[in-house]
């Protein structure tokens, strides 16, 4: 049985491995995904400067979200040392966020980018290339059997790796509900969890996810603090 081989393979660092359109994908508990064979690290929905974006509108959220997101990104890059990084859209919370990036964060980001290929996929929050930052910008990008874009297509789409929806899954036991961000996949496509510190999650059983996946094969890979927990559809709640 295919699912079994997927479920049982828990790797180093608590990551889980799965296959999407023939590519081996390592799902890291941080919410990043690593294509080991090609040394490509993918992160989605970083939402840098979300805090200051809210502050502009009068909600003075703690201004440490970018620092947290960068630190998490730094840890996962150090872990896998990827040759390429793909940021799958909504990397910045608004059009001016990149320009607003405080100097120390801009330089920290620069250090992470140094020595590797860096690809910005545009998202609805950041339709342009981020101001003054290196890297290349695409609206979508094909690689092997895979295609990387921010918003998932409405129809079944083999090999698509997308973000945008901030997937999360909920399980219930002994009257307690636990909701966590998750990867969601049916082996033909995948939607990645949001990586940013201030990004929450939307239940994958809710309407925006309807029709995107093969209901028989859908799996949620819930992010725990130290490992990824693969869950089948029947364990999930809304």
């Amino acid at each position, binding site marked *: *049985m295919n699912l079994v081989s997927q479920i049982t393979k828990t790797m180093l660092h608590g990551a889980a491995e799965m296959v999407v359109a023939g590519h081996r994908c390592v799902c890291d508990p941080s919410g990043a995904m690593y294509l080991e064979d090609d040394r490509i690290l993918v992160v989605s929905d970083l939402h840098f400067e979300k805090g200051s974006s*809210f502050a502009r509108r*009068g909600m003075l959220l*703690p201004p*440490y979200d970018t620092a947290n997101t960068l630190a998490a990104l730094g840890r996962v890059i150090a872990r896998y040392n990827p040759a390429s990084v793909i940021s799958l859209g909504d990397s910045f919370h608004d059009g001016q966020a990149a320009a607003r990036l405080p100097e120390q964060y801009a330089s920290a980001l620069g250090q992470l980018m140094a020595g590797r290929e860096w690809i910005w996929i545009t998202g609805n929050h950041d339709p342009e290339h981020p101001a003054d930052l290196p890297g290349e910008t695409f609206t979508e990008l094909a690689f092997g059997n895979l295609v990387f874009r921010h918003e998932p297509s409405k129809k079944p789409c083999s090999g698509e790796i997308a973000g945008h929806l901030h997937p999360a899954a909920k399980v219930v036991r002994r009257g*307690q509900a636990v909701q966590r961000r998750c990867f969601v996949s049916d082996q033909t496509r995948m939607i990645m969890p949001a990586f940013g510190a201030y990004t*929450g999650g939307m239940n994958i059983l809710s309407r925006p996810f309807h029709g995107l996946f093969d209901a028989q094969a859908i799996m949620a890979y819930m992010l*725990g603090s130290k490992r990824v927990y693969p869950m*089948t559809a029947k364990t999930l*709640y809304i």
Partner: protein
Amino acid sequence: MSVGIKENLARLQWIITLTVVSISNAPIADSGATLLPPLFLNWFQAKGWSPRAHQLQLLEQAQAGNSALLIAPTGAGKTLAGFLPTLVDLAQRGKSNAPSRGIHTLYISPLKALAVDIQRNLAKPIEEMGLNVTLETRTGDTPAYKRQRQKLAPPDILLTTPEQLALLIASKDAGRFFEDLRFVIFDELHSLVTSKRGYLLSLGLARLRRLQPGVQTIGLSATVAEPDELRGWLVPQTGGSALASLVKVEGGAKPHITILETEDRVPWAGHSAVYALPGIYEAIKRHATTLIFVNTRSQAERLFHDLWMANDDNLAIALHHGSLDVSKRRKVEQAMAANALRAVVATSTLDLGIDWGDVDLVIHVGAPKGASRLAQRIGRSNHRMDEPSRAILVPANRFEVMECQAALDANYIGAQDTPPLGEGSLDVLAQHVLGMACAEPFQADDLYAEVRTALPYAALPRDTFDRIIEFVATGGYALKSYERFAKIRQTADGSWRVTHPRIAQQYRLNVGTIIEAPSLNVRLTRQRGKGANARGGPVLGKVEEHFLEALTPGDTFFFSGRVLRFEGIRENECIVSNAEGFDAKIPSYAGGKFPLTTYLADQVRSMLADPARWGALPDQVSDWLRIQKEKSVLPQPGSLLVETFPRGERSYMVIYPFEGRLAHQTLGMLLTRRLERAKARPLGFIATDYALSIWGLRDMGRMFKKGELPLSELFDEDMLGDDLEAWLSESFMLKRTFRNCALISGLVEKRHPGQEKTGRQVTVSTDLIYDVLREHEPDHILIQATRADAATGLLDIRRLSDMLSRIKGHIVHKDLDQISPLAVPVMMEIGKERVPGEAHETLLEEIADELTREMSDHS
């Protein structure tokens, strides 16, 4: 309104009975002659009444320029007494014909409905005396055009709520609006002051005093244990400990309270009064109108359902609680006022002094935990002071039998104990500071001095105040990156002012301290089994999101007096259909809301230890205690009994601190950590109001006896140090508290201009904000506020700490072969209640591993 006339008659009757009946302090006609203008004396005379002593005393205090607290039992004519100074003053003003521009008297009550009620009651004497006095209400329901008109042409008397006061003082024309203010009347003061609402109100009062230094306050309160706290609250605190004058009405007729006598077996545990159903039904039949109070919404649902199942005579029995749709509640209230109902099952929504027609019996299901609440409730059954109120207590389990008996023995009911006022919370202060900036620019020194005149903030340190200003301005973060986004900014003259009109607009939409738990509409569909896609029908009410979290489609539960089947969630609605059958699968009991008070705990402990007092208890309960005495020992007041025994594969420890569920839960969390460290391999715990049970894999009794884990060490007070810290840092309770603080302080918004956000759509989860903030600034002012809140509210740390120091050196260990009689109730709760704080990570692991095994078996 169809019930108008009847209602007015009933109310008139109420005023008459209030005023006529003589009480322990008899009417003093003579002094009345000197205090009351002829118009009033004539009015009293025409009615054949005399003013009551306390009414005149209060008037005398007011006319002498004093603020005063009136303490009187329900039905003593408090309201008329409270307004007499106002009416007399206004009547005299009428003669002088001086133009008046502002509010003369502000009346503030905790409930909208109470303000509306008072308006109807007060209109009568005003009309009959022909006073030229205008009287209006202003609540959240008042339409915008009317509020606008009130600003332009203020009434003499404005009846309103704490939230409306906050809005009024935050407006630019507050100074003009209140320039003629003479009196502020606080109704039900005892119930207002102990909450965050009360803190905000105390700050509002401080502002009113600044706007109009001569303003006098009148507090109306039910009997309280510590009247001085309320007296202090009413007057400015400037260094010393100023107190308002006190006018006290003693007694009234003692309520006639009994414990329901029943042949049926009183259950060991649980909170439903199913066993007492026949008795309750009989009592309803014997009385004209009965109010039945229960502690939680789900208990109300349950009892209502069960009563209808037993309702062979088709008595008109209704249900009333805060989650029901407003129109449904109004219908019940109207039927009630028209005396068309035989019984109403209700929760706290029916609390406080609203007039409810001719209720002749109050039944209270569950233990009299919040005795102040109970006194309110019993007071409800009769507004006439000379006739005793009738009430029946229905204990739901054996411990509650003792609790009820102890309460009766100690003559407790009526002598209320409200919790101590406590220090004003900082999130409330932050909200107020922004509100004051919206009204007009302020100097920090001035506002600091003003705030400290409010009793809850009298001891506020200056640097805390300054940090709150920083928080309001830029978030108060060590990383000062929000200077350009500041909400308030200091200008050249040193005053703080709002940076943009939008800020004031946002403030107005977010004012208040009442945070509703995220809730969803419950919509009934006929299309069973269609899940969330079923077509909609009527909305039955609202249910909290956390309750739905653990439901799976097909589960059944009680709501709105029916058994419903959960179909699914669609956007902000919970879709349900009518379920077949009479039983709901999900009991949805969230535990008694009000923990056992310290006073009652002492009473129960001493009753338990004294067999001579058991005679008053039903045989089944006293027998139970006798067997406990034989098999184990009885818990003694000065010590802590620890029982250990094996059961199944596990070892159990049951202790009896009688400190209330919250303190026990905290203790349970902390002890489990310690047992974990001592390698006792604890698995879980359950806390009730009376006892705490912890179970684990290793024989704890043996560990205690062998000295491997001395009990004195396990229960050492130092658990409130590092262990508490460590637990709190990962506790979900703290996140919940943080959410409230974040909303009240204005860090995140309750609503945006033009759009109402629901709990489900909070743009940035406060949990994430909390995580980020705690990591980078664990000493941030909002984290401090959160911890302070949690320590008093959710964790009951003070009580736990008192208990630990009291039992030091007085721990009695009893290692038993089997469960003791006293342990049965708490053991029966196991599995029924959630174990709070259980590690989420463990749950995930468990499910994932189970899945893995299952899959491997199949392959």
